[in-house]
């Protein structure tokens, strides 16, 4: 036995396949198996062309209508899995990826491995690497049950590289029945005005934590510096928990993993929860008033001082240079 067919839960935003999906396809090419995708969303032809370029040969497409796309994708995989018998189904550790994975896990009665950072296949067994205790230890876990094996990988674990393939063949699935799981309806979508790059795609990230003192300082110090450096802004769990900024900005174990060229941590002590999400950055600058803060154990440049004094001076100096 070996792994001969790998399925990938394909996600797209605004007709563009997400970078985490392309990372999954790229990594799955190494397994030497047939690569097929399942996609619940709009613009199937364009998605199939992009995914095909990275190595996907077939794209099963379903229109989610106003239902949750992750649930619809999960139900579609469920309806197809019997006939097509994928050995592995890969998901990104995203909002919709988790919805699809959860539904499938229960309906197929299969365990899941999530937060994967690496993927290896040995015969018909699948091994997934994850990080625990703030990334200080790495654990390999092998799924020993029956296929299909269900795995979710954290975005940014692999580097996406096109393979020069043609468009994937689109196979329309038609309507799928998700039962009561499909009853949740999207009534409305609200997009906040996005200025600057996305957190996961930014080359420069400025993040803030509890040391900022209050919510207003996040805006005037973290957001302002990020804008001047044409970067994205992020946050530690502490200030997300306090309701200063939304969950989408959280960097860390229970948030996003980021690997920018430059990460500037302002008023972040560096709980293990946070370090696991950012210590893969190329360069790390930390500004914190506690000289013993764990953030300094991973920083290339550490300034021990009050961020409410250091950062305004820094902003003035940067503004003077970038105009």
């Amino acid at each position, binding site marked *: 036995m070996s792994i001969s067919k790998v399925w990938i839960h394909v996600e797209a935003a605004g007709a563009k396949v997400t970078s985490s999906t392309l990372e999954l396809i790229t990594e799955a090419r190494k397994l030497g198996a047939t690569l097929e995708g399942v996609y619940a969303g709009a613009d199937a032809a364009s998605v199939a062309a992009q995914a095909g370029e990275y190595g996907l040969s077939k794209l099963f497409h379903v229109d989610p209508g106003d239902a949750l796309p992750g649930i619809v994708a999960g139900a579609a995989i469920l309806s197809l899995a019997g006939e097509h018998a994928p050995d592995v189904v890969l998901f990104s550790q995203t909002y919709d990826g988790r919805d699809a994975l959860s539904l499938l896990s229960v309906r197929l009665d*299969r365990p899941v491995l999530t937060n994967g950072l690496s993927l290896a296949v040995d015969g018909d067994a699948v091994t997934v690497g994850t990080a625990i205790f703030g990334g200080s230890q790495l*654990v390999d876990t092998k799924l020993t049950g029956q296929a299909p094996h269900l795995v979710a990988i954290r975005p940014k674990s692999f580097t996406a590289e096109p393979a020069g393939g043609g468009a994937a063949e689109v196979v329309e699935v038609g309507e799928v029945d998700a039962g009561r799981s499909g009853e949740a309806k999207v009534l409305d979508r609200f997009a906040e005005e996005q200025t600057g790059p996305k957190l996961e795609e930014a080359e*420069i990230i400025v993040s803030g934590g509890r040391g900022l003192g209050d919510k207003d300082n996040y805006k005037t110090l973290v957001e302002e510096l990020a804008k001047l450096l044409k970067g994205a802004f992020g946050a530690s769990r502490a200030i997300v928990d306090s309701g200063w900024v939304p969950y989408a900005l959280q960097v860390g174990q229970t948030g996003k993993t980021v690997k920018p060229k430059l990460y500037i941590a302002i008023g972040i002590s560096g709980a293990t929860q946070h370090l696991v999400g950012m210590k893969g950055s190329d360069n790390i600058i930390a500004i914190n008033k506690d000289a013993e803060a764990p953030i300094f154990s991973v920083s290339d440049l550490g300034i021990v001082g009050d961020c409410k004094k250091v950062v305004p001076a820094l902003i003035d100096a940067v503004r003077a240079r970038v105009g």
Partner: protein
Amino acid sequence: MNVVVCVKQIPDPAVPGELDPDNTLKREGKLILDESDSYGVEMALQLVEAAGGGEVILVSMVPNGEVSGLRTALAMGAARAVLASDPALAGSDALGTAKVLAKSIERAGDVDLVLTATESSDGYTGTVPGQIAATLGWPALTFAKKVETLDGKVKIQRQTETGYDTVEASLPAVVSVTAGVVEPRYPSFKGIMAAKNKPVDAVTIADLGLTADQVGWAGARQEITNVEAAPAREAGEKFEDDGTGFEKVVTYLENLKVL
């Protein structure tokens, strides 16, 4: 309206974690209420109050009868708890956990809504809310940053990468809430005293109609093949700010060609 909140009792995250010889997380010290779950407890208390009646019921599972974290949530105002406690639960994965919690929710009585965190702070698999919903056959509305119930329906604002979606489903349903969604109350002295006498219905997996091969290590159908230390990142230079600390940063940015 009766609302169940799934809560997890975890080792204090401030204390460095350790593994037991069987590679499960060491849990022998005092367990505390996972802070992520305090938001669900607060949200449930507010929803029940807004609905003009009903109960907040806690559901939790442990291998060893531990209740200290549950008492914290009872002190906040939850009425009672169902605690699945069985040595066979050690090593349970996300799906095994969802099976146990779903059965415990059924045991809790007439339930309109189940609230959970988006993931636990220690295991952080992130699939348990959806797995509970699928096990019960209820809709899952995940990553809520706002929750309202009205006329047998639940409406949430669902966190997205760029903002939020408004999502609605009829009850009963499972909703996972993000942290920061509400400000969790501190237990009052009166609440702490009252919590000591609130009922905790401790049940074994057999009481829930489950067998040992469905939960714990046996049910997880996975094995840990390797644990090793991650390559450490070397610490760089560190300077005490004397009013010119920002200049060090500017120089660093210039060397990186960011400026």
